[in-house]
């Protein structure tokens, strides 16, 4: 059937397909890497097309059509390819403030902002009648886009998109797409990566728009509005927004589908079949295709992984992994000073103070709801404290965002595992390693070395989200170590592990302290693990540090037993029981005592 309908006059549709491929590859740089659907790139295409029109329409025609233009613009008369590149540069400049603004936004608010961009640009193009001819057609663009020209720009767009995807920023942005909090926790500057992605994708969208202009020869603002936006989104939905190959495949499939349906819609005889003309078949067919893809494969036909990443297993770089020097004991300390956090009147953490030194393991225990995770989050920057200070090696770090805390040498893991589920295990660790003081190749080598150390080598290429629970925990810790932190905050690292896994984990954490000299803060409910692992243990009850000291002493402290196990057990010294009741432990009463204990 394809054979029967393809040959006659396929050049035009082929060029349109290539131009739409440039457009969707460009949109993918932002939307695919960040996961944010953009409605605004058609506006950027419009700007590119109009900018190129200003540079190519013959000066006489321009003076006649757009007399309000400044003389310098009217005099411009560049050859089309130069103008197309010039238009990209112009749009790059115009898009810079837009990128800085929209790059700060996440999720659906960013999508809405891009929709606003579409409406604003359309309104300006329609309204600035004296400069654009408004709703009327602006024409006279030299028709210069042939199949080889379009194909060359497709290659250029794909190379740019791939370079960004594989760059540190691209990887960081993809990580943030999978889990924003975790990306921040490993120190990725997601905002800057998103801004860069938007800017680059704006330039490629402008390229697509200019190509379109020099293929059609006529521009109207209407051509770059909702219809085109949804046509391009349809391509991304079908092919898969998150990969370049998906965008390209989507462009091919949708274009072929549209062409075939268009010809079928005209009716005629195809072999033994004689079909009546069915107008509207194209729209119906395209809608059904989108529904089918959405129903069967939500991420599109080629989601998340580029085909070459499947075919070629990830390679180890030739360089040796960098070996950060063991952290000196006494070279500083992480201090939480009287940290308090209120949530609408509820005091989650009250005046809690802790000190963590390199090379030690501090346990943080306490009943459910005692505020352990909140305290950890305040230190890590993801929950700003209501009052109190955080000092990292003497420098005040209070109120810094998580990615800046991470850059100062404090890394964390999460109570609910937060991996970059659709990225490979290797990439999960690489994102964090990318932030270290070493080259890209060395970062990759370090990621591999950590996979070896955490027994994850065989899983390197697997999407992290497909791993079992134990390995997921190990990936998270490997990732937290990758940037060579001085302090590591682990929120229930052994939760959900079986005994064997838990033992192996203990050895790994021991190794981090022994070999790397990292200071570890470990929250866990598993008292056996805490007692075996920790040099010191702090106990949190009702948001306050009620005891701190060597594990043996703390485990016998009646206050701790009362807070942890309930008043019934207080004083009997029988140790842990199954009950995790949090009743009792009147806070005020204990303040003096625990102040005393903390500073013996």
């Amino acid at each position, binding site marked *: 059937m394809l054979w029967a309908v393809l040959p*006659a*006059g396929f*050049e*035009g*549709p082929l060029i*349109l397909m290539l131009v739409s491929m440039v457009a969707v590859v460009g949109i993918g740089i932002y939307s695919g890497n960040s996961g944010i659907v953009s409605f605004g790139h058609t506006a950027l295409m419009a700007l590119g097309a109009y900018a190129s029109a200003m540079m190519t329409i013959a000066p006489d025609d321009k003076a006649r059509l757009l007399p309000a233009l400044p003389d310098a613009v009217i005099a411009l008369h560049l050859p089309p390819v130069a103008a197309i590149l010039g238009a990209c540069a112009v749009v790059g400049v115009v898009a810079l403030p837009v990128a800085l603004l929209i790059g700060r936004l996440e999720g659906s608010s960013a999508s809405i902002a891009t929709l606003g961009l579409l409406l604003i640009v359309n309104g300006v193009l*329609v309204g600035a*009648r004296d400069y654009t001819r*408004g*709703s*009327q*057609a602006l*024409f006279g663009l030299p*028709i210069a886009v042939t199949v080889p020209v379009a194909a060359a720009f497709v290659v250029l767009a794909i190379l740019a998109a791939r370079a960004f995807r594989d760059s540190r920023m691209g990887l960081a942005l993809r990580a943030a797409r999978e889990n924003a909090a975790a990306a921040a926790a490993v120190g990725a500057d997601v905002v800057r990566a998103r801004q860069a992605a938007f800017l680059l994708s704006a330039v490629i969208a402008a390229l697509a728009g200019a190509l*379109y202009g020099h*293929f*059609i*020869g*006529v521009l*109207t603002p209407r*051509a770059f509005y909702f*219809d085109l936006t949804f046509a391009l989104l349809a391509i991304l939905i079908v092919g898969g927004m998150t990969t370049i190959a998906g965008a390209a495949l989507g462009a091919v499939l949708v274009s072929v589908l549209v062409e075939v349906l*268009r010809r079928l*819609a*005209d*009716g*005629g005889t195809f072999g033994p079949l004689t079909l009546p*003309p069915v*107008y*509207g078949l*194209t729209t119906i067919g395209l809608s059904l295709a989108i529904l089918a893809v959405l129903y069967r494969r939500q991420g599109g036909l080629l989601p998340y992984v580029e085909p070459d990443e499947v075919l070629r297993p990830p390679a180890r770089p030739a360089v040796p992994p960098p070996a950060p020097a063991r952290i000196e004991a006494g070279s500083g300390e992480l201090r939480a000073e009287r940290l308090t956090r209120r949530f609408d009147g509820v005091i989650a953490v009250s005046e809690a103070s802790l000190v963590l030194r390199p090379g030690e393991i501090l346990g943080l225990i306490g009943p459910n709801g005692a505020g352990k995770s909140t305290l950890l989050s305040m230190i890590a920057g993801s929950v700003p404290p209501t009052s109190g200070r955080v000092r990292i090696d003497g420098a005040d770090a209070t109120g810094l965002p998580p990615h800046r805390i991470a850059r100062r040498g404090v890394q964390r893991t999460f109570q609910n595992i937060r991996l970059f589920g659709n990225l490979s295990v290797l990439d999960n660790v690489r994102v964090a390693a990318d932030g270290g003081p070493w080259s890209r190749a060395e970062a990759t080598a370090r990621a591999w070395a950590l996979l070896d150390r955490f027994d994850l080598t065989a899983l390197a290429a697997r999407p992290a989200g497909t791993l079992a629970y134990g390995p997921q925990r190990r990936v998270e810790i490997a990732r937290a170590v990758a940037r060579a932190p001085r302090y590591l905050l682990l929120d229930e690292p052994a939760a959900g592990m079986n005994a064997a896994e838990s033992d192996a984990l203990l050895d790994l954490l021991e190794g981090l302290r022994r070999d790397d000299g990292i200071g570890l803060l470990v929250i866990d409910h598993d008292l056996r693990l805490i007692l075996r692992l920790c040099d010191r243990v702090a106990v949190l009850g009702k948001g306050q540090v009620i005891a701190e000291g060597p594990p043996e002493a703390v485990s016998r402290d009646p206050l701790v037993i009362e807070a942890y196990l309930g008043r019934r057990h207080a004083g009997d010294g029988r140790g842990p029981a199954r009950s995790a009741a949090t009743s009792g432990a009147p806070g005020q009463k204990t303040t003096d005592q625990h102040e005393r204990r903390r500073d013996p």
Partner: protein
Amino acid sequence: MTTALRTTTTTTAVALALAAGAAQAQETVTVGFAAGLTGYLAFYDGMVMQGAEMAVDEINAAGGVLDGRYTLALSVKDMRSETPAAVIAARDLVAEGVRALLVPCDVDPAIAAGQIGQQAGIPMIAACASTPTLPGLVGDYLFNLKTADNLQAAVLAEYARAQGYETAYILLSPDTPYTDLLPRYFAQAFESLGGRVAAIDTYAFDQQDFSVEATRIAALDPQPDVIMTAAYEPHFPAFIQQLRNAGVTAPVLGSDGIDSPTTLGIGPAADGVVFSMAGFPVEGGTLAAFYDAYEARYGEDLPFAFSATGYEAVKLLAAAIETAGSIEGAAIRDALDAVVDFPGVTGTTITYAGQNRVALRDVTLVEVRDGEQHFVLQARPAPETTPKP
């Protein structure tokens, strides 16, 4: 928009030759049409296509062109009322080797398709786009056939002055050349004849509600003698109804964009509206005969003048080929450019000589009454009244 695509068979030369019984060896001259068979142009382009089909069949039945050496064929490509698709359709048609091209009814796609035909040196006719600047914008291969906006405006202005209207309110939309230029031409002609423009208001193309404009007109003191607009669907029906609801009784003048069934279906609000068009089927006239033939072929629907200009376009091309004695593009173009007093089926003669490829022809005014069109007058405006494109 009601789809006028009742039987849209793509005519092939072979089938036609057989049907006509013309058995001798003939070559085919194909006329291409990049037509919006779907989308907002379907009503207009569909009608042009059917008119063109009738002309092709008629010419072939009479033996073709150039002493029977050639039969005509019509090749239609759907451009889905989209400008990019119009470019592709035009390119496909050029690649097919068409000798002449009909361009779509709206200006943007007409320019887009026109650029392709101009580059390829193929004579083109815009059978229903009436913007008189179109041929100048595209180049020397494109000819306007429909009653040009400035001609319509001039006849409307002459009529308005003859009715004794002194002041005019004008509603235009700068969003398309048609809705922008035609009322401005009217204003120019109206003033040159001693009338006065009381106010010019604008509407946006995505506007659906005209209560603001209606209220503003109702508040004018004194009321204008006449209201003129080139608005068409969906704007015109909304405007006229809200205007009458607001209590405005001033007569309304419109243009050929409202030559559609919708206007006749508006009801009492549209009564008394006078608008310009390409021709009216007066009893015993050529247009009445054409409409009879059209109804016989395509069914019961009331035909509109777009079908007649589609028919005229092919007839004109055939005549130009005869005059040129050739099917070469430049020769056909030169022959078209020299046409004087070609008898159009709409009941007027058509002249291109000296007109910069904008057809000089009569304009017909009709009045809407009780859901029907009633003939008012047919005239060619005085050259000094006609605004320059």
